[in-house]
């Protein structure tokens, strides 16, 4: 057996396994979100397995490509969206499980770029649909993307910079940020200023999540009542199923990122457990954490607000959240300058 072929086979195997895991977990999260928001709206809501049924139904349905669409871009967009969302998950640790397939070669900056790919794919697919609704939706998706990038980048970079200031090597590595192996989190190195700064940045990240996932109040690109689905209005059948799966995986990826950055604790750090048990317990705890993050940043926000206009999205993210991010950053800088906090 040729060594590189064996390695490639391993990577392919892990990727397939992760894809299956990611889609199942993503759809489960969508189901939980639907059920919880229904309960908050005093409705019964669909059963949690509803997204799986929807997915199955969509795969049985005809896949229509509109006459005016650019067929290859239109068909490629859902695949690219799903693939890039799954790729993000490959880099984000799940509990104490860190996938070794890319070794040290992925970091936070890469994840930030990868997170924009599903949105870009949607924009391309929207423009390629040849529908005025999709065109307006794609324009909005682009604007939304530009709007939330700034606060997201501030939150991630501020965190990594603080870790490097604390003397931690390779601070942009996700495994390092998540304290895998080192058991050192951001909360262990910051002083009082830093704690406030980090809390502000956590809040910023919570608010970036609905925009990243196109959920109310930032579902302007899809805007059911205005654009009848916007970017995804022309999608049906298999393509729509893939987009739904991508949406679920993206939710898990965003929540996973928030968990890795701000809530990386694992039960196995505090209780001595057998390796296999530790891994299982950590994983279950990780699931609880991402469910909680999604509950707060998606379900609660979306049941308590109306949809924003696109101009309001921009002013919210560039104005208020950008400012909040900068304040958080300034506090973290102050933390380092005053010499508060621990040095590892």
């Amino acid at each position, binding site marked *: 057996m040729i060594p590189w072929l064996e390695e490639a086979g391993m990577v392919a195997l892990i990727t397939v396994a992760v894809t299956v895991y990611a889609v199942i977990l993503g759809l489960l999260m969508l189901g939980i979100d639907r059920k919880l*928001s229904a309960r*908050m*709206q*005093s*409705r019964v809501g669909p059963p949690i397995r509803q997204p799986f049924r929807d997915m199955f139904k969509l795969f049985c349905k005809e896949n229509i490509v509109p006459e*005016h669409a650019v067929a290859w871009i239109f068909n490629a967009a859902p695949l690219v969206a799903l693939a890039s969302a799954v790729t993000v998950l490959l880099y984000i640790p799940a509990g104490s499980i860190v996938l070794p397939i890319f070794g040290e070669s992925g970091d936070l900056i890469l994840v930030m770029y990868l997170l924009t790919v599903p949105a870009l794919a949607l924009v391309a697919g929207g423009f390629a649909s*040849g529908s*005025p*609704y999709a*065109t*307006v939706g794609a*324009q*909005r998706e682009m604007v939304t993307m530009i709007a939330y990038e700034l606060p997201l980048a501030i939150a991630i970079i501020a965190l990594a910079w603080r870790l490097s200031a604390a003397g931690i090597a390779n601070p942009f590595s996700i495994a390092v940020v998540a304290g895998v192996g080192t058991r050192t989190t951001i909360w262990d190195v910051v002083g009082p200023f830093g704690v406030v700064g980090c809390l502000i940045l956590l809040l910023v990240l919570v608010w970036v999540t609905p925009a990243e996932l196109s959920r*109310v*109040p930032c*579902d*302007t690109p899809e*805007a*059911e*009542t*205005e*654009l*009848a689905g916007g970017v995804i209005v022309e999608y049906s059948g298999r393509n729509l199923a893939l987009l739904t799966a991508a949406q679920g995986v993206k939710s898990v990826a965003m929540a996973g990122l928030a968990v890795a950055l701000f809530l990386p604790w694992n039960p196995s750090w505090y209780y001595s457990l057998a390796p296999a048990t530790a891994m299982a317990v950590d994983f279950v705890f990780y699931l609880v954490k991402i469910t909680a993050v999604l509950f707060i940043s998606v379900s609660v926000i979306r*049941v*308590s*607000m*109306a*949809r*924003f*206009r*696109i*101009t*309001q999205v921009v002013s919210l993210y560039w104005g208020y959240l950008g400012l909040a991010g900068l304040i958080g950053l300034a506090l973290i800088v102050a933390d380092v300058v005053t010499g508060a906090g621990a040095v590892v």
Partner: protein
Amino acid sequence: MSDETGKKAPFSLPIGPIHPALKEPILFTFKVNGEKIEDLDFAPGKAHRGIEWMGMRRNPVQISHLTDRICGICGVSHTLAFCRAVEQIAGIEVPVRAHYIRTIIAEYERIQSHLLWAGVAAHELGFDTLFHLAWRVREESMDVIELLTGNRVNYGIVQVGGVRRDITPDQLPAVERSLSYYEGLFGRMLELFLEDRTIAMRCRDCGVLFREDALKLGTVGPTSRASGLVMDVRYDSPYAAYGDVDFEPVMPEQYRGEAVGDVYDRIVVRVLEVEQSISIIRQCLAMMPEGAVTFEPKIPKLLGLLKKAEGEALGRVEAPRGECLHYVRMNKADAPEAWKVKASTYSNQLSWLEILRGEQVADIPIIVASIDPCMSCTDRVALLRPDGATVVTGEYLHRLSVEKTRRLMP
């Protein structure tokens, strides 16, 4: 796709005839530049059912059941307007108790209509929680309407000469329960609809209809009141029991201090009118005298009387959406010689051109919904061959009527 639908600005964005933003079919065509609406046009006539045509082949008692079905929301208003016109022609004196029952049902209808609208408006804004809550709260009034009339939607209670059912003492506790339920809820509704930040962000200074424009375009009902025009058929020319009841037209000034005429003001007027309706129902229940509820319970005798009637009359009623007007002409026959329905949306729809121009695409659903349009009330004609259609201007129609007047009165 036409040439104008290309990617070059301004491109045309069709909304309708079927679209999630619209609860009933109508076709809007927007010229959009980026997110801004530069120009628009709309084509109603997609929900025409020929009810007037059906009516001209039926007697007034039968028509009163057709008028119930003109609109699924304001059935009482249409029937009441029609019956008032017929009663006027035939010289029928409606018993006082029937007047009170008509008022009570009409006000319950206003409560359920405004709550339905509030839910729709919240949904148009993407605020689904409020939509579900508003519609759940609305059920209370639907239940009372069902208790009093026997039906949830097409009530079938108003009839020429009175009403078809009396309100019995054993129904009063349920009515009382619903009234105190809404009274207890009212503060919460104000808070949810008028103090919510996102609703204020989306609705303030959006879709503004200035006072002069509201007057010029002949708007009616909550749409005109939100623009600062003090007009309410119930107050200006009282009918049924409204003359006995103490109330004033609801104006946005009562809540906000000024009438801006934006979408927010239209929400204010409708939410406050729910409170007003509760007070009107309470007053009616307190003052309602005993007595008969219909002028003539025997339908054949009533029909015999109506068959002898001759003349023409206008019946006006303040429907939840604004003035609803029925014109009836009878000429000693079973069926009326002419019957014309002008629903409130007919008067309000032209304000769309004014309030949508220059606004953003995102605001189309809420602005369109803000006048509470009812296309099945409005549509009186359907264009089968739009290619051969010619546009008739206001000046042309005016010239025609001047010519006709000169011919009639030389």
